[in-house]
């Protein structure tokens, strides 16, 4: 849905949506996310927040839910006074995130960089015990440069 930046609903402090596990649905979510960031006067964080969302939506769709469209992925974004919080949840079995955090890929490897991007572009990252939910925090005034 294309709405103007003046649309008050875009400035709500919390937004959530749920999509089937299809990669072609990620673009729509990212578009809406950008509109909301712009409405909150956070245009400068659009690239970084979209990148974080893409990485963890892709992971949730392709790995968490194994690409099974009937399984859903939920995204929730909330705007605090100092933080933006992004939470992505899938309906899969989770994964061993502790091991993945310890073993980031070498420069010749062509996969496995999503979590590394999460670490670089967020200020804080937390996985649920099972690993099917990730929460990322990003400061509104960022030192992540």
């Amino acid at each position, binding site marked *: 849905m294309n709405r103007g930046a003046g649309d008050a609903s875009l400035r709500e402090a919390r937004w959530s949506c749920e999509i089937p596990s299809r990669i072609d649905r990620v673009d729509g979510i990212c578009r809406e996310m950008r509109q909301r960031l712009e409405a909150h006067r956070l245009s400068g964080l659009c690239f970084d927040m*979209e990148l974080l969302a*893409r990485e963890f939506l892709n992971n949730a769709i392709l790995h968490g839910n194994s690409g099974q469209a009937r399984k859903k992925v939920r995204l929730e974004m909330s705007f605090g006074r100092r933080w933006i919080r992004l939470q992505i949840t899938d309906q899969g079995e989770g994964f061993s995130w502790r091991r993945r955090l310890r073993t980031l890929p070498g*420069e*010749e490897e062509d996969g496995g960089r999503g979590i*590394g991007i999460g670490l670089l572009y967020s200020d804080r990252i937390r996985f649920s015990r099972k690993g099917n939910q990730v929460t990322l925090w990003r400061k509104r005034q960022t030192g992540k440069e």
Partner: protein
Amino acid sequence: MTAFRIERNGMMARVTPREKLTASEVPGLQEAIRLELEAGVRNLIFDLSETAMLDSSGIGLLIAAKNSLSGLQGSLSVVQATPEVMKLLQRMRLVQRLQVIGGER
């Protein structure tokens, strides 16, 4: 409109992803690159001047293409990255590996 453009000139091809190079564009572009290499292309230039978004799947494609070309004594370089994509490649420490040429336009 296709998600990318490829212009071939002998053994060299210039690949220009339009708008973004992310998980949804990777399968189509991967196949197109495979066909270029089969046709004898050995030097790939990725022109990222129109690419506003790059994710880890797109980075994976660049590295896989680089690995394939290295095995064929070929080369890959990245040119004209937009400022935010350039910053991502720098932060991922891939500037040297992917022969990223030039910086912000």
